[in-house]
């Protein structure tokens, strides 16, 4: 086991701590722009991990994927979000249905849960535990964001966080899927976001607000 390997291993585990931090911050963030920044930071960390993985496993494909992540998640998507926010001219606060304190506690609980879960899988999956835990935590908090935030944009963001988590999990457990599939997945995400963007506009135009919790015409 070479020096690089050890270094990357430490690198991975330490970075997963930063991931938790972004998660916690994200659930307390008051303004959309902040959350977007946190998201891009999160994606940056993941990019770093991808590269680290590539170094460790000597996967050419990993570099491509890393580049993609950097391009799309760190730069393109946050940029698009900022454009969206000021194009929509809607109030910029995330409308949360939980108070920051509750959010923090819930997020903490989720992080703990993810650790517990990963422990229970530990023996079957031979991977850096805390990294995997971080992935699961991302998935959970992403879900939490989607459930607890009323803004359409925040739901998109939550989805992205969730997706980040899945991506990270895939990365850590299987060093990424075959390249074609990865690219396809990225493509889907892009298109999906595009569509959601369109729909946010439509929502804004038809309801002149972006509060999805008020979209309750169809029920029963």
């Amino acid at each position: 086991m070479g020096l690089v390997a050890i270094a990357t291993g430490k690198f991975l585990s330490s970075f997963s701590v930063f991931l938790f931090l972004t998660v916690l911050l994200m659930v307390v963030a008051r303004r959309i722009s902040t959350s977007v920044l946190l998201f891009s930071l999160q994606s940056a960390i993941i990019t770093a991990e991808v590269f680290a993985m590539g170094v460790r496993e000597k996967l050419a494909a990993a570099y491509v994927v890393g580049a993609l992540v950097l391009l799309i998640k760190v730069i393109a998507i946050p940029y698009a979000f900022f454009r969206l926010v000021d194009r929509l001219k809607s109030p910029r606060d995330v409308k949360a249905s939980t108070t920051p304190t509750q959010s923090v506690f819930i997020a903490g609980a989720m992080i703990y849960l993810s650790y517990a879960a990963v422990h229970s899988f530990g023996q079957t999956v031979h991977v850096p535990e805390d990294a995997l835990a971080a992935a699961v935590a991302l998935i959970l908090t992403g879900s939490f964001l989607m459930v607890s935030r009323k803004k359409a944009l925040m739901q998109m963001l939550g989805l992205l966080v969730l997706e980040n988590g899945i991506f990270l999990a895939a990365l850590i457990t299987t060093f990424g899927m075959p390249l074609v599939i990865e690219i396809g997945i990225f493509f889907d995400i892009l298109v999906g976001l595009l569509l959601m963007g369109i729909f946010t506009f439509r929502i804004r135009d038809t309801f002149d607000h972006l509060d999805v919790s008020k979209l309750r015409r169809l029920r029963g």
Partner: protein
Amino acid sequence: MQVVSIQVAFGFLLASLGLLAPLVLIASRTKRARAFAITLIVGSNVVGWFVAALCFWGESKLALTFSGFTPFPFALGLDRLSAFFLLLICTVAVPVAIFAVSYFDKHYGEQRRNWIWAFFSLFLLSMITVVTASTGFAFLVGWELMTLLSAGLILMEGDSAERRHNVFIYLLMMHAGAAAVVASFFLFLPYSHSLDFAGIRAASPVVPAGIRVLIFLLAFVGFGTKAGIIPLHLWLPRAHPIAPSPASALMSGVMLKTAVYGFVRFAFDFLGGGPSWFGYVVLVAGAVSGLLGVLYAIAEHDLKRLLAYHSVENIGIIYLGLGTSLVFLANHAPVLAALALIAALLHTLNHALFKSLLFLGAGAISNATHTVDLEELGGLQRRMPVTGTAFLIACCSIVGLPLFNGFISEWLTFRSFLAGSVLLNTKAQIVLPLMVGVLALIGGLAAACFVKVFGVAFLGRPRSSEAEHAVEAPLLMRGGMTMLAAACLLIGILPGVLLRPLASLTQVLIPGAGVPDETVSIARIIPWIAAIILGVTAITALTTRVQRMAPTWGCGLSQLTSRMQYTSTAFSKPIRFVFSSVYKPDRKLDKLPTDKPYFPVSISYRSVRTTSYEKALYRPFVDLIVSAAHQLRRLQTGNIQVYLLYIFLTLVALLTFLRFQR
């Protein structure tokens, strides 16, 4: 050779009822086409009658399979039991169809008439399928179609909120009952690996006791719903009255009998009896249905509803016979079991004959007076003598008076009750003979009810101008009714014709059953009684002198008006009073003007029954389901966050499930 010809004839019956007649009717609207189709329907039923007769009186059997064609085995066959019921269907179908020709012509426009005839023919086909099916698949197909087509016939008749509600209840109860029937069929599946009757019969010995009980109860409920035993009868008095009279005749006369057929198939042919409590369950159901049915009937003055309730009563009598037979079977008395079963089956046929005749009579009445409300009728006997006489014969038959067919089957039932005393089981020794009293009470009430019906509708003075100006029904209607009346009398005076083959039929269903002596003895005595009664009546009729018209004594009043006659309500008053605990009536007496109670201008009295099975049994259940639905509806909040939450919670639940499954 004969087998082939029978198969061809039967195939012709199916083809013409199922394809030719409907297609012709739907394809072309011309008079000639319709005439052709109708002749086809009648003719094919005549053919069917002969096929059934050959298999019922003769030894011939018939098997017709389409299994290669259909996804699941679909085969028809005629053993004696099926043949008997096919005979029943065709015997009723022919006169009813003949009656229907002029009835439909009078009541419906060109287009609707064709549709009704198409449905009529398909309805007949579905019932024939049910009684001749020899695989579960075929049976169930016929069973479901029977419900649908009859509902279609009802909806053809007209459209109103109340009618829709009744049809809805009808359809719903039928579907629930059908579900029970389906289940009772399928429960054989693990043991028989196929649903053809032979396989089921072969498998039934290895079916464990628990499953047998389940099968029996499901069959009892499923077929009971169709047969209309109380408290599963709810649909019957709603659905039968609102159908076109010929359709009501078929529904009450024939469709109910398919349920009896199904029950006999299951209880006797498949299960071969069971513990004696099976029998007692059926016996109690029969007694309750018989008594309450006839009591509700007496309180009615809408003729068709009244007749519908009498169907409940007669189904009750049939079930009394079946229950007795099951009890005997459980007590290892095959001959007596055969006797009771013969009684039940014969009553099934008899009821088919006189009940359809009664409904046709009701149709003739409404055709002549545009009402079936007894309070509006009266004096029809003089205006429509043939209809009246046929109706009277039907009344005597349903009441079970000697010389008419109803008596034969009721007498056999009485004798099977009486025979209960020879069993070694004290419960049976007490219960069965006491049932004589129950049946006697039922018979007495029925007699009272039909004295009312015939007396109020056909005798005395007309109570409305419609009745005043009623004219005799057209030829075809009279023809149809006369045929049925003749059949009633024939069976009533020469029962031997049917009893012998019925005895051999029961020997197939009940192993080790000989021919009960009663079936022989009654055939011997009835002609004597007939001879004496008719002889003496004839002699007195010939010897008494000519009679002179003289107005009825008017109690000193200048002349009597028809309003002074007893009405239907008044007639049934004493019995309603005695049995008021059954009705718990809510009476209302309005006198106008209210300020001068002793010099009223008008008095209106109405009394409604407040005992209701809906309130007691069905409502709570339905409310439960509907409220559950509303609760669930609330879960669909429309808030996307909640939706997402559902997904996550499902995931979490499954993960924990996984965790603990490990």
